[in-house]
């Protein structure tokens, strides 16, 4: 009963209501966690349904947080749900995270993951980290002292944020839906263990899970000598990362304005099966899988605007072009992608 009370008193923030967030939310609500924040700015898409099990066909186009809240509230009307229909960014991260005791990172990109880690480190909030790649998953618990009072964070493991083009994301690389289901559920298990004080959570440990052979491999994380505590001003100014300005991220208004300029190409780097389809006379489609050939083909245009579904692959494409053309061309990426600016197409 005491454990049930601890769950009822807990305030957990789930960032990302996607493949990892959906199963985690279901089990946290079912377990009776008293207050759950859900942060996600995306709408439901057809391609989400194989792994994001809170959503159905009729939900396509609706905000994930709204659909998730409706389903979760049916499961357990006692849980208080707080919705954050926004992308977590440097301006709102501190304010949002401050309201919770425990944070779950189920996002799908490094920029968010490093930002969430840095904010949790700054505010000394326990962070349950989960991520997937191909058929494998990683889970860890950060910013939580172990028996020796040792505390580690994600930067003790991977100090520097990888470039967007180093690692493909789920939409591009594909992932078997059951994998984030397993990893998200394991993460919910870690959250329940942390709240109730039972068992041994993965504090200062990284667990690797491989779906193909059911193998697990656990390593001990110790604090890095290199790691320097991130300050609030680092976070606000993005100086935690030395971002090279090889391209410019723009909003949809600027994209439409720029597209009127001479010698400007608008390139959709999504794969051919993705929706919504854009007008091919305005937007040339060059999927990421064919992008290298295009990038090396002596592009004549001076200004190149790249776009994709969420603005992640287009950043990778922008970095690729910059590596070939340097500053001889102006390269832009639509921040947030087509999903964010739906009404502009």
């Amino acid at each position, binding site marked *: 009963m005491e454990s049930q009370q601890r769950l009822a008193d807990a305030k957990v923030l789930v960032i990302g209501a996607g493949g990892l967030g959906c199963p985690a939310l279901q089990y946290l609500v079912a377990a009776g966690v008293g207050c759950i924040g859900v942060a996600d700015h995306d709408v439901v898409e057809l391609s989400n349904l194989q792994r994001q099990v809170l959503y159905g066909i009729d939900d396509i186009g609706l905000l994930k947080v709204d659909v998730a809240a409706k389903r979760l509230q049916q499961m357990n009307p006692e849980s208080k749900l707080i919705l954050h229909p926004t992308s977590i960014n440097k301006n709102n991260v501190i304010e949002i995270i401050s309201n919770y005791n425990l944070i779950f990172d189920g996002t799908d990109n490094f920029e968010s993951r490093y930002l969430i880690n840095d904010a949790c480190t700054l505010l000394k909030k326990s962070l349950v980290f*989960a991520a997937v790649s191909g058929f494998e998953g990683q889970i860890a618990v950060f910013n939580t002292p172990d028996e020796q009072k040792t505390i580690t964070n994600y930067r003790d493991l991977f100090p520097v944020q990888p470039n967007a083009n*180093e690692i493909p994301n789920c939409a591009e690389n594909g992932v078997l839906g059951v994998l984030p289901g397993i990893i998200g559920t394991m993460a919910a298990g870690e959250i329940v263990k942390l709240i109730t004080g039972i068992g041994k959570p993965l504090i200062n440990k990284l667990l690797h899970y491989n779906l193909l052979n059911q193998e697990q491999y656990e390593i001990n994380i*110790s604090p890095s000598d290199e790691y320097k505590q991130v300050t609030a001003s680092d976070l606000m100014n993005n100086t935690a990362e030395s971002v090279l300005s090889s391209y410019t991220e723009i909003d949809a208004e600027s994209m439409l304005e720029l597209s009127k300029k001479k010698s400007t190409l608008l390139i959709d780097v999504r794969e051919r099966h993705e929706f919504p389809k854009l007008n091919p006379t305005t937007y040339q489609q060059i999927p990421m899988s064919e992008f290298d050939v295009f990038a090396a083909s002596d592009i004549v245009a001076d200004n190149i605007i790249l776009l994709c579904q969420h603005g992640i692959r287009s950043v990778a494409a922008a970095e690729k072009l910059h590596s070939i053309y340097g500053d001889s061309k102006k390269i832009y990426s639509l921040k947030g992608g087509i999903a964010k600016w739906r009404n502009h197409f």
Partner: protein
Amino acid sequence: MEIEIISFGKISEFINNQKLSIDVESTDDLKTHLEKIFPQLVGMKYKLALNKNIVQHNCAIKDNDSIAIMPPFSGG
């Protein structure tokens, strides 16, 4: 001497789990050697773990040690 190599994620696409006969004294030596035989590692972010403990500074390697090579995952 012989060491066991265990790789994860994208790195397992070009480095199989294997026993490697090699003469290196430390994790820094091993890193240099690995990047020579697997040039795809150069420029990638990855971390080593020696006998399941993360490598935060140069550590001595002994016969039959195991080395895990791990990239960061971001998918969700």
